[in-house]
């Protein structure tokens, strides 16, 4: 039942926040914070009660829920949470709270509706991470789109409409391909067993011909690859991120992209082991191309927000390589990188938002010399750029290193290619630091440095990035329990191959 509350609290919080604006403009913000804090209260105790194995099927589950939804079509309201899901849900809720705080001053119109959308989007994302009925999963997958669309379209910057429509068309379009895959999988299972079901555990080990498996797996892959995003399906991301309000960018980069990586891990690998194996070289190529391509494009950007967006694509290339290397180490690395990327890139988007709030521009050509005017902001900004670059001792490094290590054991060529990709990353990161924070001020300005609320916000993220870099063990332990759950027999066999 806990899991249902996890979804219901933000959903109802959203319904409350919308009209609450009429009473007082601050009320929606507090309602959102309260709803998300309640979610934290649900999440934390789960860690203590590592439930006995075998609730849902096999493995270590922290909590589970099972209820009927549309029995006629074999669709259940089946939720479960393991270590992997827990990490991602915690990231969602945590970044959600930060997104509310960061929009405290940025969003000043239609406050109620904004927070309603934010909460619904988070609820949809949480649902994606804990749904274990394929149809329910898809329902949540689609559900998180509409609020995100509104956040970008209503509160975004200059070209918000174009960006929002592009985002929606890309993700919804690829989602429909995934839906076709889900339905096909269910009907193949129906033909095999005479039992129509969308139950994740029942559909594992569905027997099908190679071609069918490949086609269905491709449908799933498209849905997740667009969301991650993987080159060449990434074109929606820079635009959407650039135009979204800061809170929208934080949620998009920090959480929504992770649904793509999560989907690959949770669905493509275990459901279609053979097809995943067949696709792996191509997928890894796409990942490697993405690392380089996005890094080079990022280097050429003058818009700081666009630069961060392209760096995101580059990092997600690592996740892609890690996932499709089938190495236990690299899978761990992919999870760690997803979490670290959520923290560091979320923080970077906040930094850009704070800079924009002060100098009314995101253009690197109009920055320069920020350090003298805004020392605290610049110092924190530098920290997060370094983290995103993969500096040892900070979160991203752990993930990238593990991925490279794991991939190297299986496929040295890709590991070398990806490792070389770290060089352009260092170049664009350092240049960005130089252009934004050092040198002469391009235009005269007078800003005030970070306030107490902003310092607090950044301190949390900085602490997260540093702790992850220094002591990532708890994350590995949690993720390992989750990864073990998914590695049903076929995948395990492949891992040891």
């Amino acid at each position, binding site marked *: 039942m806990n899991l249902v509350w996890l979804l219901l609290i933000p959903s109802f919080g959203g319904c409350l926040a919308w009209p609450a604006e009429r009473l007082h403009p601050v009320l929606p913000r507090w309602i959102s914070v309260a709803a998300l804090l309640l979610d934290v209260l649900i999440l934390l105790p789960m860690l203590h009660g590592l439930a006995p194995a075998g609730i849902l099927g096999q493995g270590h589950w922290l909590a589970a829920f099972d209820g*009927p*939804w*549309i*029995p*006629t*079509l074999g669709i259940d309201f089946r939720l479960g949470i393991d270590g992997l899901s827990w990490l991602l849900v915690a990231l969602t809720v945590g970044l959600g709270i930060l997104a509310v705080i960061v929009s405290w001053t940025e969003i000043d119109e*239609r406050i109620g*509706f904004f927070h309603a959308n934010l909460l619904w989007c988070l609820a949809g994302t949480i649902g994606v991470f804990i749904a274990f009925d394929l*149809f329910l999963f898809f*329902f949540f997958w*689609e*559900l998180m*789109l*509409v609020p995100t*669309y*509104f956040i970008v*379209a*209503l509160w975004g910057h200059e070209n918000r*409409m174009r960006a*929002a*429509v592009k985002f*929606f*068309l890309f993700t*919804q*379009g690829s989602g*429909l*391909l995934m*839906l*076709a895959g889900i*339905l*096909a999988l*269910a*009907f193949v299972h*129906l033909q095999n067993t005479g039992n129509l079901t969308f139950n994740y555990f029942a559909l594992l080990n569905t027997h099908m011909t190679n071609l069918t498996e490949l086609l269905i797996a491709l449908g799933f892959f498209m849905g997740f690859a667009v969301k991650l995003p993987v080159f060449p399906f990434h074109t929606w991301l820079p635009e959407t991120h650039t135009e979204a309000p800061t809170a929208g960018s934080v949620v998009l980069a920090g959480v929504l992209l992770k649904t793509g990586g999560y989907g690959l891990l949770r669905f493509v690998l275990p459901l279609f082991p053979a097809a995943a194996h067949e696709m792996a070289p191509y997928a890894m190529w796409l990942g490697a191309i993405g690392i380089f391509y996005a890094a080079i494009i990022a280097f050429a950007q003058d818009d700081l927000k666009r630069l961060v967006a392209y760096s995101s694509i580059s990092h997600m290339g690592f996740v892609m390589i890690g996932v499709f290397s089938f190495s236990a180490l690299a899978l761990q690395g992919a999870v760690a990188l997803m979490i670290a990327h959520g923290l560091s890139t979320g923080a970077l988007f906040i930094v850009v938002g704070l800079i924009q709030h002060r100098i009314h521009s995101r253009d690197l050509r109009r920055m320069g010399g920020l350090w003298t005017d805004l020392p605290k902001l610049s110092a924190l900004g530098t920290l997060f750029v370094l983290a995103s670059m993969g500096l040892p001792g900070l979160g991203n490094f752990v993930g990238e290193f593990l991925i490279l290590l794991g991939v190297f054991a299986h496929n040295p060529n890709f590991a070398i290619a990806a490792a070389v990709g770290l060089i352009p990353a260092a170049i664009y990161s350092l240049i960005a630091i130089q252009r934004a924070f050092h040198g002469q001020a391009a235009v005269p300005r007078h800003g005030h440095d970070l306030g107490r609320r902003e310092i607090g916000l950044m301190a949390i993220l900085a602490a997260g990035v540093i702790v992850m870099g220094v002591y990532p063990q708890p994350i590995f332990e949690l993720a390992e329990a989750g990864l073990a759950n998914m590695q049903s027999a076929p995948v395990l066999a492949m891992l040891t191959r």
Partner: protein
Amino acid sequence: MTQGMNFTAALPLLILTAAVPLGMLLLIVRRSHELIAGFTAAALGVSLLSVNLALGASSAAFSSLFVFNAYALGFVALILAAGLAVVVLAYTYFQANEDIIREEFYLLILTGILGAVALAAANNLASLFLGLETMTLSLIGMIAYPRRRPESVEAGLKYLILSGVSSAFMLFGMALIYVGRGTLGFDALLAGHTVTLDDTVMVISGLALMGTASGFKLSLVPFHMWAPDIFAGAPAPAAAFLAVVSKIAVLAVVMRAVGQNGAILDPKIADIIAGIAVASMLVGNLLALMQENLKRLLAYSSIAHLGYLLVALLVPGALGRMAVSFYLVMYAISVIGAFGVISILSRGEAARDCDRLDDFQGLFWSRPWLAAIMTFIILSLAGVPPAIGFMAKIYVMASGVSADMKLLTGVLIGTSIIGLYYYLRIIVVMARRQDAMIALSGRGEISWLGRVTLVSIGVLTVVFGVDPQPLINLLKALT
């Protein structure tokens, strides 16, 4: 052929038949807008309630002309509910409009619904034609009702001529089939098999002619040309009637002809229907992209939706039947809702309806609740959760996948993505901030009746979208 006359089963039809002359008498005694609207709503309501009684009747036949089995009664109930919504919409539409004669509009709704109910329950080609003509003739009057609007009169005239031609096709087709088979009764015509092409030239030509006429009424490609003009010219409540009630009634007959008996469709005919479905999905969605007028856009969207429906229609068995029924309910709720929003913002006395996309600019800021309802309706038409359209599209896709119809399912997915673009545009326009005060035809106060109707439509789209099981159970009992 002598069959029983079960009056209980035919109660919905009989109540409506009695209501028409009573309504006329009422207008002679007292001409009051409120009174006749209330009377019409009551007649439709009582008829709707009597469906329950009719379901329990011992036999479904009402002479050899009509059959009121659970299947037909399901359609009848849907038609009556849609009719009730149209009455409410018409009431708010004409409410402030005291200088024109508006009372007859309700009589036209009543006769139109009477025709639609007869059509849905027809068990004989003669009663089919009777119902179709009753409905069509009433529709012509409804479309051309605002006589001071040249567009409406033009639309009425167009519909008169085109539907006249299509009725001629229908009638000639029936005549040819009668020559070939020597019977008009559905039971004999469909006995043992559904429509097939292995037949005499007479029957095949008859089928082709009747198919053309049905295609016209359902505005399927290539018989769709009339739809945008007439939707745009018709007053919003009439357009809702045209888009929902008339199509449901015709579809009830078509569904019966192509596989209600569980028989398998002739593959050649299935191919033809598949071709029409592909063309409708493509043309409807592509042409909708360029529309600036919401009613025209809905006309094209309706063409596309009928295309989706045909996909499910081709799937044999229970899944296909359920998909069609579920999709029809979704279509009725969403389209009535969309036209409802238009008609609630419009006024009958204005020079035009509030139907341009620009009219909706900034609706999110000026009327947030109405915009929210419209958003859910549009999402439903686009097939996005949590609206009911999502579940309906899933049903259709699932039936397509289960029958292994790769091409049709592929086109369905592809055109749905295209469709998203124009549906989203409506939401985008509503969300755009209003730069200047735009003089809307009717930004007046919205009556509570209209509010209640639209809010309940909005609630229905979400409730059935999140929890479709009750609706599925209901439909299962009926089909």
